[in-house]
């Protein structure tokens, strides 16, 4: 019997039997607590197939706020600097001992790099030590640093040209044929084909910081000269629309909203239509946080992407937002979301905390997905491009 049928059989039998037993037992139980009344929509509304009619967007914000102040990676990691670093002691050590390897392993594991990637990195270093490429403790640390930076640094530039092809190794700033637009972000793809609307879709599990990231990015993109429109694609979470509306105000961008509990695809569709009509060239689309384990929600997300891709929309970025405190599940998230909606890059948020966000190393190594942006706080300016060297410095600190 093929795996599929065996699996189905097993699941059907097991779940059937168990559910029946649980139901039997519950029916037998003495009077339990009174069922809480179910006021208002509690469960997820089923995703509708048909697009809902256009909703009116919120009124435009008044004055455009000042340009975002430049924030560097280093500034954002201020809070964690000065904490004791056991690895620094390694530098002074001449020979490489067992304890050295333990310390390196510990540093990597504590940074959430994960067992598999840590083992691979250390195996490479052992090889280098054996072949005498690397000598003392200090060299070893440098070698590790170099390995990590190499792993994370990728040359990815998008041509401003219409077909959006990945340009060669010669770096070319996005939209370089347009004099007024300055390069923003780390390789965020932005096509400048006339009549087309760029859609950057933000996806991820619950609570990672999608809405906040959009708020920050809206400000930066606007300041860089792009015409931004926000789409409140989170129609599920209580007050999600309100939250994004506040960010729209702060960033001086317009927002397209739908009804609470409505079809998120419809909101994104409306936003793209509106953008095309009003001449916005970039739509930042928020989506509801969802666990990749929920099949129907993943299907809903796939649909959102499909709808966003309808001309004149073009999905030029699908950014998976990952919380720096996330452990190994980050890798699972990256895999599952990529399979569902073809993630193009990561946004690593909350890196201003004590968590190192090392899971992105594993994600890049195993899935080839780069981190494009880093969130360093809750303020509107706390979003910077990813810098592999500074990230690794902080990771090994």
């Amino acid at each position, binding site marked *: 019997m093929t795996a599929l049928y065996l699996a189905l059989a097993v699941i059907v039998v097991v779940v059937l039997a168990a559910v029946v037993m649980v139901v039997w037992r519950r029916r037998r139980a003495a009077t339990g607590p009174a069922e809480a009344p179910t*006021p208002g929509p509690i469960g997820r509304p089923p995703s509708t197939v048909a697009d809902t009619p256009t909703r009116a967007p919120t009124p435009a914000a008044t004055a455009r706020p000042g340009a975002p102040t430049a924030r560097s990676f280093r500034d954002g990691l201020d809070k964690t600097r000065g904490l004791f670093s056991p690895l620094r002691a390694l530098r002074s050590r001449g020979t490489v001992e067992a304890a050295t390897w333990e310390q390196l392993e510990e540093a990597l594991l504590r*940074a959430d790099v994960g067992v598999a990637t840590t083992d691979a990195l250390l195996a490479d270093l052992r090889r280098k030590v054996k072949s005498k490429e690397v000598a003392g403790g200090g060299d070893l640390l440098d070698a590790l640093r170099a390995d990590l930076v190499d792993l994370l640094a990728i040359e990815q530039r998008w041509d401003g040209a219409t077909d959006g092809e990945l340009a060669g190794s010669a770096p070319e700033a996005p939209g370089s044929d347009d004099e007024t637009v300055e390069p923003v972000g780390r390789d965020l793809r932005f096509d400048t084909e006339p009549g087309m609307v760029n859609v950057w879709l933000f996806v991820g599990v619950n609570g990672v910081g999608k809405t906040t990231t959009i708020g920050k990015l809206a400000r930066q993109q606007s300041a860089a000269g792009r015409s931004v429109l926000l789409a409140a694609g989170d129609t599920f979470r209580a007050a999600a629309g309100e939250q994004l509306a506040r960010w729209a105000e702060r960033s001086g961008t317009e927002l397209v909203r739908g009804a609470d509990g409505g079809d998120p695809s419809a909101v994104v569709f409306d936003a793209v239509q509106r953008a095309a009509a009003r001449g916005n060239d970039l739509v930042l689309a928020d989506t509801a946080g969802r666990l990749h384990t929920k099949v129907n929600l993943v299907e809903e997300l796939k649909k959102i992407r499909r709808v966003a891709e309808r001309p004149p929309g073009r999905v030029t970025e699908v950014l998976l937002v990952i919380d720096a405190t996330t452990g190994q599940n980050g890798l699972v998230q990256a895999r599952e979301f990529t399979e569902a909606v073809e993630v193009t890059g990561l946004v690593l948020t909350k890196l201003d905390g004590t*968590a190192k966000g090392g899971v992105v190393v594993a994600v890049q190594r195993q899935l080839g997905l780069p981190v494009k942006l880093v969130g360093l706080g809750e303020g509107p300016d706390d979003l910077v491009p990813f810098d592999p060297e500074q990230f690794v410095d902080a990771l090994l600190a």
Partner: protein
Amino acid sequence: MFDALSDRLERIAGRLRSRGRLTEADLDQALAEIRTALLEADVELGVVRGFTDAVRARCSGTALSKSLTPGQQVIKVVHEELVRILGGETLKLTYASRPPTVVLLAGLQGSGKTTTAAKLAQWWRQQGRHPLLVGADLQRPAAVDQLRVLGAQAGVTVFSEPTDPVALAQAGVEEARRLGRDVCIIDTAGRLAIDAELMEEVRRISEVTQPHYTLLVIDAMTGQDAVATANAFHQTLELDGVILTKLDGDARGGAALSVKEVVGRPIVFASTGERLADFDLFHPDRMADRILGMGDVLSLIEQAERTMDHEAVAKSAAAMMEGRFTLEDFLGQLQQVRKLGSLGGIMKLMPGMSKEMRQAADQIDDGEVSRVEAIVRSMTPAERENPTLIDGSRRVRIARGSGSSTQDVNQLLKQFREMQKMMKGVMAGGGIPGMAAGPGKLGGLRSARKQMAALEAMGGTDGVDPALAELFGGAGGGPQPLGVGAGPPRPVTAGGSKGSRPGKKKKKGGRVTPPKGR
């Protein structure tokens, strides 16, 4: 991707099998595997070390049990240790003599405090209490709006005003007193543990509100950082307990173990979804299973119970018990099971899966499941009842109707016959190929049913379900599952205190009274 501990230990089981005693070398190997499994489950490195030391101490020189393989024995010890750490001393919720009982929620950004606050409010309301929610998160845009919407869903009033969080919290408690509420739940802004200013703020909130319970809300997918965060909050606020959120994901949740071990306060509640109802007492034994990658079948069943149509399930179960299982039943069940999520994902949650089964689970393509469903749907009800009717021309029709080939249809029919045979075997008391034979596993459905009937006659169980425990034997006579869901108002208890193993003194849930002077 993350091998279950059971798989890992199987690899070294061969060497362990033929000895009478666990040698140090054997133990080293086993512990190395355990270490990797725990790290992959996000347990903090220091906690892993302490844990493996404890397991080593327990296993060293132990004689091998007759009924368990050495690998199983080690897993048993590991499982017991996990349950011991995760359970242990419990938080008995007592209420303040002078209401309201103040509950303060704190945690990192995005951990789920606001949703949890509303869930707690609903939970208490279901217990017959009258809570007030205080929205003291003035940092996050629209956080108070969010709480108001959720509060309305829970049927609980929300208090907030645009001052500063400390004054607001204090006013909130006053308001609760004024309104005569007996519980006051304070939601605060997410904050980094190393943000000195904000940690000072929450300390002041605690100072002015004098909470009876300070609970840390932590995300189940948190990695190594869980300990640093929990420690910092504990130092500042003196936590009484922890609430673990987003357990409906597939994160193994090692953070739970880390936090419990390091902070020493019980994990009180488990949040298992975005709806207000997705909230329950924490079950240490289930968490232990999950961390070890042994599947959280009971949660799966609860989820199944929530999403499946009970009548349909009962009918199909009855039919199956009598040895009937038609394509019609199959179709019905297929649709029900699909509501639970990806098939591969569900398979991974099944206990006792062999390595081959797990690999097979990884390869299952949910698209294929749709195709199977399509084929069965293209059949007429008569054909589903009696597939022997299906001749050449019907086959062609079915193939066309479902967009597949006649070979696909043939394949399905053949596979289905195999399935029927297998299920008949299971019903009769045999095992399932590919699943480890354990005490009382699925083979024994009939006996389990008899047990249920016997229990029914005796007047019911209270919390423990031996039939279910029997059904999902787990590793070597494994954990006793707790009664699911909250019953009538009663204290929070830890799991596993029933059915204690011989020779082992199990510490019953102790009582942690609120700090003095409240």
